[in-house]
């Protein structure tokens, strides 16, 4: 694939990637722990699947040291951003998704319902992820998940 880029555009993308990378570069030596890669890729506005992430990591990893170097990360991530390889999920699609799960059309989901779907279907959650999600999304009073409200409150736009 050939891209026609102005120099400025490429440099801009590079700077954005470096900024995100550096946020996790605790020792200031241009490396991050491989376990943070998902966070970095997501925070750059991408929505990769778990398989996508695995592939990505395989491309940038350095002999199973557990660390990723900026040198390798930068070009791969640049392409990802320029190709818009992992595009975001539009808000309305998200709402539809919740409505699909809400079979009885109640307007909310029970904790057990959501748990069942998240931990048994699709790219399943770990127990930790599930606990976290329930804590974050459950309405304190009624103990259910009002998904419409949740979407409104938790949609994060722009950089971070």
């Amino acid at each position: 694939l050939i891209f026609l880029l102005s120099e400025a555009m490429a440099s801009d993308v590079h700077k954005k990637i470096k900024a995100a990378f550096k946020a996790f570069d605790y020792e200031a030596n241009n490396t991050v722990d491989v376990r943070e890669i998902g966070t970095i890729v997501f925070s750059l506005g991408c929505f990769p699947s778990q398989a996508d992430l695995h592939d990505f990591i395989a491309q940038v990893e350095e002999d199973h040291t557990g660390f990723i170097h900026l040198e390798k990360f930068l070009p791969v991530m640049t392409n990802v951003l320029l190709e818009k390889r992992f595009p975001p999920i539009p808000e309305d699609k998200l709402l539809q998704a919740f409505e699909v799960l809400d079979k009885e059309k109640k307007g909310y989901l029970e904790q057990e319902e959501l748990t069942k779907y998240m931990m048994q279907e699709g790219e399943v959650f770990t127990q930790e992820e599930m606990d976290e999600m329930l804590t974050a999304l459950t309405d304190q009073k009624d103990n259910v998940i009002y998904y419409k409200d949740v979407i409104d409150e938790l949609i994060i736009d722009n950089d971070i």
Partner: protein
Amino acid sequence: MLHSEFSRIPDHSSDTVALVQSLLDQVQSRLPCGSQHTIKAAVLIQRWYRQYVARTEMRRRCTWHIFQSIEYSGEQAQIKLYNFLGYLMDNFTPSSNERKLISHIFRENDVCRDAEWERYFCYKNIEVPEIYSGPHLTFPLTVEQAMGLVEAFRNKKQLHSRYILQLLLETWKLLRKLPNINRISTCQSKEITICGDLHGQLEDLLLIFYKNGMPSLEKPYVFNGDFVDRGHDSIEILIILFAFLLLYPSNVYLNRGNHEDHIVNLRYGFTKEVLTKYKMHGKRILKLLQKIFSWLPLATVIDQRVLVIHGGISDSTDLGIIARVDRHKVSRTWSDEEWSNSKFLQRRASMTYPKPFGTRSNFQNRSLQDFSDRIREKVEDEVELCRRRTLHLEEQNQNDENEQCVSIQSVNSDNAKEEWKQILDLLWSDPMVQDGCIPNEVRGGGCYWGPDVTEYFLNRHNLQLLIRSHECKQEGYEFCHNRKVLTLFSASNYYDVGSNRGAYVKLGPDLVPYMVQYQATSMTRELTVRQRFRSALKVLREQLFAHKSDLLSTFRVYDTENTGLINLSDWAEAVESVMHLGLPWRMLRSQLVTCKSSEGMISYYEWFNELTIKKPQTDHIDEGLIETLYRHRSTIETIFRIVDTDNSGFITIEDFRQTWKLLSIYLKMEITDEAISDLAVTIDSNNDGCIDIDEFMEAFRLTDKKSRLERGRSMFMGTATDLTKLEGDPNI
């Protein structure tokens, strides 16, 4: 039935996982369509949620980064101020007004006998009224009383000033007998517990005692400095620590931290806390604490193998020197005694100095760059004057006695420099990843030291581990330098709710550190990451506003055609070059710049309008001056409080003027007499010739009273929060 399906498996899937996945797909496609939708829906939600979590994590990191860099730059400002004042002391002749104004802050060793001090601190005629419901103390203290104190503070009671003074006097007596370096051993079965920074967070100390038990003969403790400042209950923490120290002097050890320093306390809230909680006797309590702090030991060694110090080391740290210094005398500049001697001897016309008023080395040189040409000129004049004067004197008198004085004085002054540096390094240094040792420019004191320095130091002193504190760590602790250095931080939720855990360390005879983490959760408001992030951003916006002029001129450099627009890249570069906070500006841009920008360009004039902090009653004051006030508000308040020698909260108009003259040099700003009058008039509304410091700060929106009370911790004023609840009690 599945057999026949195998032939349909795609050829290029050699990977087992892909194979299985493909199989599953085939199976699932046999199920009713609803399930496919369900799976797709689930995937969408999972992916969206994971993205949300990642972004939250990124925000959390940025919030941390913001608070930490602002904290360190505050410390840097503190040391700069300290250096500046010291520099003035060193270089102005005795006749200068400025000297008079600041000389008393360096009165570390007042020329006073102990007996006189005992009288000044006497608590005996302080009566405890019947209505007082707090704990009563009798000496010598008993275990029950110490427990009683802990319980009382847990129930938000306050200890009466009579008992505090008594307790502090006993503590002072004890500390004077202790060596600079505590030496302890684990013996057969004893485990030693070590705690890091507490910063006035009583909840954390109570949590540690709850989890680990209180100090006792079986349970020795080391507390590694920074007991005070920032949190609400610094004085309560000190009382508890001192009480246990008195009870178990062979089982409780305290190391001095960089915040056990009365000048630092002026800026970071401890002074204010004491004066607010103890309106009548606060000044005396603070004075006594000043002495106690100077008498705190500097280090603790466990089993001759593990060194515990608050900050760290440098490539010149020498435990031999540390052990020998007169720790309560080592200070930033000469004592009053030495001052009066020098003045006296000069007048006698028989004194010579190698250098007039010996300028300090090293870290002061850096601060010299900050000063205006005006002061440099003035100083050179003064120095020249002194040089001529002393040469003249030299010619006049060649006394043996004088020569002796000279050599002692010059040796003393060199020693003093060395000792000061040794202690500064011990209390202010931070470890770094790279080898070597460089000055700690971020904090403004001590060094950054590398793994090679650790290696050398440990070998030289026959040690195996260095335990230090001083830096907040997310998990409460962190190893570095091949696990030879352990950073330990015991104030959880330090930057704000949920920011970090606290930790303490247990060390048995095997000297293998065992960490225990915790997090205090009794905060009444649970802040989400988003709220914390917003709070950090607010603080950041204020900082940006405070640097408006510099930012504007920097933007104009990039905007050569004067369009009023700047692109994102340049914006980020420009902002960092002015602010020096090392923050990810590009990532924060969308949160800091909300005005619409066309095609990636930012309209910076519009942006400044956005940032402007409204100031109703100060319209007649020059905007440039307002901006300067805002930027340096912490320093300004600190200086006011220094000038307020009797700690009354008021300073006279005359002192106010003198202070501004001083500040105009420090801030490199021409502040006319007229401008100063304008400032004074705005505040001294009742015309009684006195200015209320708090009111001044608030009038110029230099503090936002509401948010100061609301927020758990003020990054700039370093004050305790809900002071209103304490205002009322007259009995204390």
